[in-house]
């Protein structure tokens, strides 16, 4: 079984079909998350204080640790690509495995954070309050927060799955050319998911100055 984004039988071999495909996909994803950012921007512009009050309730430490985890995982993926081009596929597999572990750690920490927010009553709904007081726009912050981080997590989970499958297949020497292409395309996706988080992080955790 080959990957969905594998190249077609072509009359003229060209090395960048998978990469171009991934760039186009990333463009569509940029608009996907971009629309969410627009909704955030409009709502925050209307109610800056409410957003600040809501952001103050987010868990700064989990968010920051998670950022470091994700950035490190991107470094792992970059190393995997480098090792595959210049070294053995075994090293690349290990680096990919590192990315899988770190990505999974991110998701685990995220789940802990969500659970904590749920128990503190921060999940939006008809009976939502902020510390017992109704703050409608603050509720919207959390609505946006759960949608954005939820979609981000789905993208990350898909990335982890692909990384795991890719890692197990790198040992097939016969497809060396395609593997480089695929890993390069995969790396683009993983780095994009990372960039989305980097954009989300200040919008979630850094709205108000923290003491």
């Amino acid at each position, binding site marked *: 079984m080959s990957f969905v984004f*594998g*190249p*077609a039988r072509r009359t003229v071999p060209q090395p960048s079909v998978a990469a171009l495909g991934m760039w*186009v996909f990333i463009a*569509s994803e940029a*608009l*996907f998350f971009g629309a969410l950012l*627009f*909704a955030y921007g409009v709502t925050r512009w*209307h109610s800056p204080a409410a957003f600040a009050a809501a952001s103050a309730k987010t868990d700064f430490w989990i968010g920051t640790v998670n950022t470091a985890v994700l950035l490190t995982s991107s470094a792992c993926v970059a190393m995997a690509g480098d090792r595959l081009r210049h070294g053995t596929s075994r090293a690349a597999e290990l680096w990919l495995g590192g990315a899988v572990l770190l990505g999974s750690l991110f998701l685990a920490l995220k789940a802990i954070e969500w659970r904590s927010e749920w128990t503190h009553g921060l999940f939006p709904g008809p009976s939502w309050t902020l510390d017992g007081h109704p703050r409608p726009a603050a509720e919207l912050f959390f609505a946006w927060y759960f949608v954005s981080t939820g979609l981000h997590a789905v993208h990350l989970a898909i990335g982890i799955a692909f990384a795991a499958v890719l890692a197990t297949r790198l040992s097939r020497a016969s497809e060396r050319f395609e593997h480089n292409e695929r890993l390069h395309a995969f790396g683009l996706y993983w780095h994009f998911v990372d960039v989305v988080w980097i954009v989300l992080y200040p919008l979630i955790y850094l709205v108000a100055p923290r003491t």
Partner: protein
Amino acid sequence: MIDGTEPSYLRDGLSLRSWLLSTDHKRIAILYALAITAFFFIGGAAATLIRIELATPAGDLVSDDAYNKLFTAHGVIMVWLFLIPSIPSVVGNFVLPLMIGARDLAFPRLNLLSWYLYVAGGLIILAALATGGVDTGWTFYTPYTTMFSNSSVVLTLVGIFVTGFSSILTGLNFIVTIHLLRVPGLGWFRLPLFVWSTYATSLILVLATPVLAITTVLLVAERLFQIGVFDPAHGGDPLLFQHLFWFYSHPAVYIMVLPAMGVVSEIIPCFASRSLFGYRFMAYAVLAIAGVGFLVWGHHMFVSGQSPLANLVFSLLSFIVAVPSAIKVFNWTATLYKGSIRFDAPMLYALGFVGLFTIGGLTGLFLASLALDVHLTDTYFVVAHFHYIMVGGAVMAFFGALHFWWPKVTGRLYPEGLARAAALIVFFGFNLTFFPQFLLGYQGMPRRYHAYPPEYTVLNVLSSAGASILAVGYLMPLAYFAWSLWRGARAADNPWQAAGLEWQTASPPPTHNFDAPPRAPEVPYDYPPRPAEQNA
């Protein structure tokens, strides 16, 4: 249905499984054609009921809720299950790789996935219709959709979300294919205009559809969890929905019309036996329409409570986006000059497109004018405007494409006499249906009215009469195309003597498209000069 002795893609596997698991772009195009035809007639059935109801002022055929569900079903099905996929996924899928000398699209398996996503989304939408329907209008305005509608809103939105991914993946496939799989020597300015149009359409598919996806996610979240993003009582804003929705839905109309323009740019040079006039401007115009088309969405919101400054900006940009379309109409007309013109069915549809798209486009100027739009928006003037473009334009072009490439796709000829008659019946029926609606709109008949005040009766009766004629025009091809598959004469490789690489291979083509990579033409629309005795 089996063609002559040569092995073609049609004979390459005869089981159902070989069709349903095929990654051959030509077979996938046919899978799309079958699904799209089914949805077209379902959407058309809704339209038929609407026009029967509107033949009398009283709401006496169906209840008001049923009527609201009918016009919503018509809009949702026609927009997402017919117009958006029709030319790209049927014509584009089949013809694009052939036009550039490629064996298939860049990602053939992704292409098959696109079809399954489309069918899945379509079935989900049909399930929503079967479980009580949805009554919000295809525009799903909030807070009615999220707080007041008692209908299958969430299911419909999920179906739209799924078909959206079909669109995005198709666009992605086309972009990569056009960039990387052209036969050597086929530079950008040697490409047929249909390729340019498909490319511009694909850019919109990839960049606009994700915004729709997020919008449906937010709508579903609001409806299921009352998160408040569109609810003023929770600090939300109903106008935020309109901005998000129209940011996609305006470029969406260019998804529907740009491929149609591409088809017309293929048909007219062929049946005028001469090269397209103004090739470069035509190519740039297509890109300009796609680009500027992203900047005009606010013209759907002139009376929504949007600021007057925003209204001015969107109005000006809406006038600007009309310019490249005007250029195209002039260039198609100029392509007839000094040609040698044949009036086969594809040409009748293409000329019909030019006329009806011109009227539809010109009426867009009325709506772009702020003071006029205040009166005309949300009336039947708008309904007439967009049907002139979508039906008089895109559907006519789709039918033109079906007739033009029918011999290539099936290896058969359709009956020309019946086809011409159907084209003329469609043209006449269409105008009788929709022209009165411009007048209805100026007289103030609002949209989405189940029953209407009696002063609007005469024009509504005319419109409904036209619809019955239009229906005949649409049913005829169903009959004679089916007949052609069994009894039509066999087609040669190039029955129209058309330029274009797709005509350099057999009708129907082999699975691998070309036995040897074809040679790129020196110039596009390489039609030979007329024989001397034809000249005056």
